[in-house]
């Protein structure tokens, strides 16, 4: 092949015909290269029962152990969910849920006792969960101004149009603007361990470290840089309509106040699905010997602010430990096991087919 292509080039050089324009015409002979003659070495995958067999068995053998592993991992995660919506007459929060309005100034508190059958060993993550809350609604998702949240002082005073109708309140720009911020979850949850001796011990909840590192340090920034005087910075802005406090009073810690308040940041990352949970607090493990949450009875104290009844939503408090693959979710393990078994089963069927019919195709192997 090398030789022939060499020849072709030689000819190209020799045959030069003077055209009428004076330019030299080369021989029109196409080059004899593998590419141009479409003879590139190629792998021709022909899927037959015989060739596919090993893949199916392989997948089966590979997936089933993984599935088992995932399932076990998921099962080891301890998780507790408490619905405190109060839609039930029997629920302790029923009253609170009835007498609700965004603007009520009198906080309503309800107490829900629960019992942990098993001790929670590692760090425990405390979530609040909302159901039927469409945080992924198209208009809702857009209703925010990222520049404002990024500390842009221009956007602070002049929020994006996307924030409408939550951009201005009485001609003052709202900070943070938009529907997402406006509807921020504002229940306060507290956990108490009921000591067998009758005392209630407040469990310390860490409110930092619950947001993504990138969100906290890159995406969300307070305006005015490191100016600790938030009041001055947010001068001339209005608080979101549904909020009780302006944004610069969310926390006393300046590292967790204003736009970089982690509760706020967590809320601002809109959930993908209408039933979701968001990280609320972390119960740090203090002692290697003692479980983070020992067995026993607890009390959840809720300052009930957030209304969900209008859209038939539910509110939950979730306590969960976490593994390398996230929260408790047996689906993945089961799915792996199922798919693995199906593959294995199909492999067996293919094996039978291959033995019955495979000879035919074997005789006619195509050489590439």
């Amino acid at each position, binding site marked *: 092949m090398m030789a022939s292509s060499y020849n072709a080039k030689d000819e190209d050089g020799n045959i030069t015909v003077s055209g*009428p324009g004076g330019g030299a015409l*080369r021989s029109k*002979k*196409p080059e004899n290269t593998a590419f*141009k003659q*479409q003879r*590139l070495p*190629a*792998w021709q*995958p*022909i*899927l*037959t*029962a015989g060739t*596919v067999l090993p893949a199916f068995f392989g997948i089966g053998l590979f*997936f089933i152990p993984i599935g088992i592993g*995932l399932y076990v991992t998921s099962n080891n995660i301890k998780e507790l969910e408490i619905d405190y919506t109060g839609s039930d007459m029997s629920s302790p929060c029923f009253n609170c849920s009835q007498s609700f309005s965004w603007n009520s100034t009198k906080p309503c508190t309800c107490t829900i006792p629960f019992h942990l059958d098993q001790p929670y060993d590692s760090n425990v993550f405390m*979530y609040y969960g909302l159901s039927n*809350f*469409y945080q*992924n*609604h*198209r208009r*809702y*998702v*857009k209703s925010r101004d*990222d*520049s404002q949240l990024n500390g842009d002082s221009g956007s602070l005073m002049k929020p994006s149009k*996307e924030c409408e109708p939550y951009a201005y309140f009485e001609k003052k720009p709202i900070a943070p603007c938009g*529907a997402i911020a406006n*509807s921020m979850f504002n229940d306060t949850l507290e956990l108490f361990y009921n000591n067998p001796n009758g005392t209630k011990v407040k469990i310390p909840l860490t409110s930092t470290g619950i947001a*993504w590192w990138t969100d906290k340090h*890159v*995406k969300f920034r307070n305006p005015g840089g490191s100016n600790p005087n938030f009041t001055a910075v947010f001068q001339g802005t209005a608080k979101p309509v*549904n909020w009780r406090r302006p944004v610069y009073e969310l926390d006393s810690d300046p590292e967790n106040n204003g736009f970089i308040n982690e509760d706020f940041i967590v809320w601002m*990352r*809109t*959930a*993908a*699905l*209408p039933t*979701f949970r968001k*990280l609320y607090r972390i119960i740090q493990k203090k002692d290697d010997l003692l479980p983070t949450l020992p067995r026993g009875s607890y009390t959840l104290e809720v300052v009930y602010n957030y209304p969900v009844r*209008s*859209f038939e939503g539910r509110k939950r408090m979730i306590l969960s430990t976490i593994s390398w*693959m*996230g*929260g408790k*979710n047996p*689906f*993945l393990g089961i*799915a*792996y096991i199922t*798919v693995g078994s199906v593959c294995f089963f199909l492999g067996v069927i*293919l094996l039978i087919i291959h033995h019955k019919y495979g000879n035919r*195709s074997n*005789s*006619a192997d*195509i050489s*590439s």
Partner: protein
Amino acid sequence: MERFHWVQHRCRQLLEGQSVQHWYSAPNGVPDKNSQDAHCSPHRVSGKQRTVFGRHGPHQQEYETISRNYKSNVIRTTKYNLLTFIPMNLFQQFHRVANLYFLFLALLNWVPVVEAFQKEITMIPLLVVLTVIAIKDALEDYRRYLFDKKINNNAVRVFCGKQKAYTDQRWKDVQVGDFVFLSCNEIIPADIVLLYSSDPSGVCYIETANLDGETNLKQRQVVSDLLLQGVEFSPESFHSRIVCENPNNDLSRFRGYMEHSSGVRVGLHNNNLLLRSCTIRNTQTVVGIVVYAGHETKAMMNNTGPRYKRSQLEKHLNKDILWCVVLLFIMCLTAAIGHGLWLKNLKDPVFQVDEEMSPALAGFCVFWTMIIVLQVLIPISLYVSIEIVKLGQIYFIHNDLALYNEQLDSRILCRALNITEELGQIQYLFSDKTGTLTENKMVFCRCSIYGVEYPHEENAHRLKMYEEEKTEAAVCSMTLKSGYSVKSLSCRSLGCNRSSVSLNTLNTESEEEEDQLFGKRTSAFCSRMAKEVVPDPELVKKLNWLSCPVLPLSEGSPGTPSSLELTYIIDFFLALAICNSVVVSSPSQPQNVVPEAGTPLRSLEEIKLMFQHFSFSPFSALTTISPPQIKSSPGSRQFTHGKTNSFTFSTPPSSTTVGSESGQESSLETSNLKLHLSARRERGDIGQLDSRETEGDISKTKINPDMAKQDVEGLTREMDNDDELVYEAECPDEEALVHAARAYRCTLRGRSADSLLVDLPGIGPLVIQLLHILPFDSNRKMMSVVVRHPVTGQVVVYTKGADSVVMGLAETPTCAEQAQEIHTHIRKQSQKHLDSYAREGLRTLCIAKKVLEEEEYEVWLKRHLLAESSIENREELILESAQRLETNLTLLGTTGIVDRLQEEVPETIEALQRAGIKIWVLTGDKQETAINIAYSCKILCPNDQLLTANCGSKDVCAAILEELKLEVQRCEDSLTRITSKKNCGNSFLCTVASFILVIDGQTLDWALQEDLKSDFLELSRRCKAVICCRSTPLQKSQVVHLIGKELGVITLAVGDGANDVSMIQMADVGIGISGQEGMQAVMSSDFAISRFKHLSKLLLVHGHWCYSRLANMILYFIYKNVMFVNLLFWYQFFCGFSGSVMTNAWVLIIFNLLFTSIPPLIYGVLDQNMSADLLMGLPELYQATQTSQVYVPCMFWITVLDAFYQSLVCFFVPYFALAGSDAGELTLGSPINASALFIILLHQVLESHTLTWIHVLVLVLSGGSYFGFVLLLSVFCVTCNPPTNPVGVETLQMSQPLFYFVCALTTVTALIPRVLFRALHNTLNPSAVLKLAPMDKVNSEKYHERMQRWNLSHSKVKRLPLGADNPGLEPSTASEVS
């Protein structure tokens, strides 16, 4: 660089073409074909005329007023300039509905309630497409600009009024009315009427290669009476006015007249016009006046865009796209209703932003939002992709070595860019015969004069030898001594006849032998062969009788030709030599002028004497006024022209030079051409004088007949020594005939516009005054020259034409009985010879002559001149005039010319037939010739049953069709019975015995009529092949149209000549063979190849590939879009149908535009579902694409279903894995997108049949670019993409094992069904390849065995002598099917 230009050119064509192409194209998307057809209609031009004055002549003022509106010679082929580029280009681009669709979506996104993404993002696809195309357009336009500039600045010498001289000017400064001075080899800058030529006879030669690719020289002539005006033409003295038609694009027509100041009008026609971009050749200097300049020149007006044909697949695709639209509509409607219902059930939710909207209105808005969100479902980019893929495919077709012709150094030329896949679906192939199946390199083979056949056995032998020694080719038309004759040979008289003949008795070589030998055959056969004709000894002997003018008075001796016969022979050769339009040139004499007739070999006196001696011969027999002499006997010596009865003979004094010398014709003024030219007015008189003078006494001598043998040798020797004359003929028949005449020393030496120089045996150069040439046209099927005989001064018409016409026009002189007898005898014999020639597969021509009376000629001349100078209906009038002249002809003789098959034609045909393509041969040739050629190229197999339909009336035609149909039915029934009994699943063997329909032109006319159409179709559908002989170009296209339309099949027409143009244009795929007959066929074709054999690779391999590639790519594209869009759709169920998406809008838009767009293109260009060798080896595989197995509706739905399944898996596995967790929107989207990408790319891998490093590279790059993009976005895009903020999402995701577990599970689960389906399909139902491979071996073995046996049993027949006029070899009709 060249290649780059080519690609650019293609791109431009593509883009230009697109502006009027698709279903989504502008309202003016009339198929290009119509506009092409419009060229043909003669009255495209308004009746207005243009008047041209010399620019620097006396008519300055008139010139100013008139020429103001004429375009100057500046050409501008660019579409834009710097200022107009952007608006014009945008305007052009928005002619495409695809772009309008994008624009509509972009605008829709500006409506606030509907808005789905940010405004900029929806603009991206539109902007990308517009920019890419705009850049391409700009580059292309710039290139054209440079080219224009170069052209416009070419220098040319133009007469300048001030300096009174020719000065160098640039092309662009040339104006209408300018006088242009051109030298040899210069390119003509504008359309110019020729006013002066340095050639003494006022002739100029041009080469039109730049225009139509024909390299032979064409002769142009100075306006007829300008020659007389003086020696040197001076522009200042040009006072004439030129009136001609308005600019049009008909290259072959120019009508007008020139009015001199004296008021005399001279007709102008095409012969006076030099076209722009042609080259002056063989003429030193030329002066002309510009009549059309710049864009009004015919060359520029012929610059049409590329052809556009819409392919079947595309039509099919459009249907599927409509389904996609329906799907989109359903999905959007679902979302709209869902959103309405969802809203209705909500009471004042906190996440509801626009509270005031009613659910119905909100639903309505969501509908439009969803259209934006799901826009990808309509694969508009598919159209662009298809075009790109076709470009790629064409690139590879263009570069195929197998489609390259070494001899001509020509590749395949792809003129249509968008029907590559049609090549894979051809079901009917319509082929011309001459030049397509055969070489169209003619070799004179046999002739018959005066009813006597001269078989030229040595010549035939030599032809055979030539082949044998060179290639040992076993089959060519010469060896096909076709022992059969079809019963219906003489059926014309019966009114109708039909027969079905088994071709078993045909002689043939064994299959194997052929197969071996054809491989070796080269096509180097021709040029020498065509030139060298070994003369027939018999004929040479007879000629010698004449050259040594021993008058065969002693008729008693056998073999002595009668003088009447001699005159016939001489006239015959003279006609061969001069009745043509051959241009003569010789290397030693580059100037193509008639050489000054050299000194004759003997003194003028002698010639005169000799002529006197023969003066009777050429004319007397034909002159109607001299019948009494013929009365006596063919052997009678008594000829008269006037009073002469005695003969003089002068012994040649120098007879040693070239055998014996003598002349049958002579000229008195051979010595000086100039004299001849200037004296042409008086010629008539001189001629008459001559004849009177020459009526002298004639003496006779005896000649030694033994000399004949030596003479043959002498002749050949002379031929060798003869200086090389090069004949350039427009049609190869002519060349062959001229060479044949030359072999008998009747040599055409030169030609000028009004004279011919002919060497005659024994005399030397002789000038014959040429009065008219009535060129060949397909209506008359003949051509004639009118010459004034230099000696007798009589006007003689020599005619050569198709036997059917000439035989009809050749009338028996209504005179003496004896003469009549002779004539009837000649005609009968000639007809017999013609038939036998035809049976041998020779092309037949009849040569005839006619002597015109002076008065008769005057009358005719007057009307002819009138016809020539008329502007309206010139063609019709000239035709009529020619027809008036060509009557009452005297048949001189007939010729048989061999036209060899092209190499590998039988193999190609066999392969195509095995591929399930029905082959029709449409030819203008005789039935016998056609059948013979059909046989030799294996359209007919020995087992085939021949059905012949010839009839004279419609009723009979109907009856025949009916009867044939019944017969076919009967045979088919019996066949199926046999096959069912044998239980042979072997389809190939069963189809061997099939039917071939042979139909002639007249019958075809009936059959094509409305009421018989269906019968004809029904019949032809059941035949393996159909041969239409004696068909006109119109019929050819009618047949193609009928089959294509009524049967709904894809047709391919292949041809090489102008008579195939209509057929080529009518067919779905038109293929032109660039051969001997000019470029018309090529110019109107979609693909131009140089050899018929290229068809097999083109169709079987490239067609198959192109089709399956495109079909697979389309399916893949649809799959890809449906799959991806459905992901978004499923999400709507979880976001209240609000039109929200779980992906970053950028990723969403670019996903289709970048990440997954290249692999399908590569797939579409490079995939090979089967190897080329396999496809060539097993033509049956073609049937898979032919019947569109890949792209059937069910495949579309399977694909869509598969896409639905995959999208379900791809969405719900991540959904369940993340359900109830704290996943944000993008966190959910991330694994979904990633696994969608994996699935889509791996799906591609599963679907493609070959994977090369290019595939792998592209796949890796595609995947890599996605991850690169999203990672970059998640690192750097802090506030860049406001609503959905990607910062940190992907980095976080990809650092978690969960992401990979989800992706792995999703990808595997989604692809399992496809893998399983493929595996099961390939195992349980092995594809055609696997099935056919073993079967083929059995087939071919069996077949060869059979053929061998058959050959053995028929070998006797083979040895039978050539059955030229032996009707006894007719096969019996009884042996129908073996």
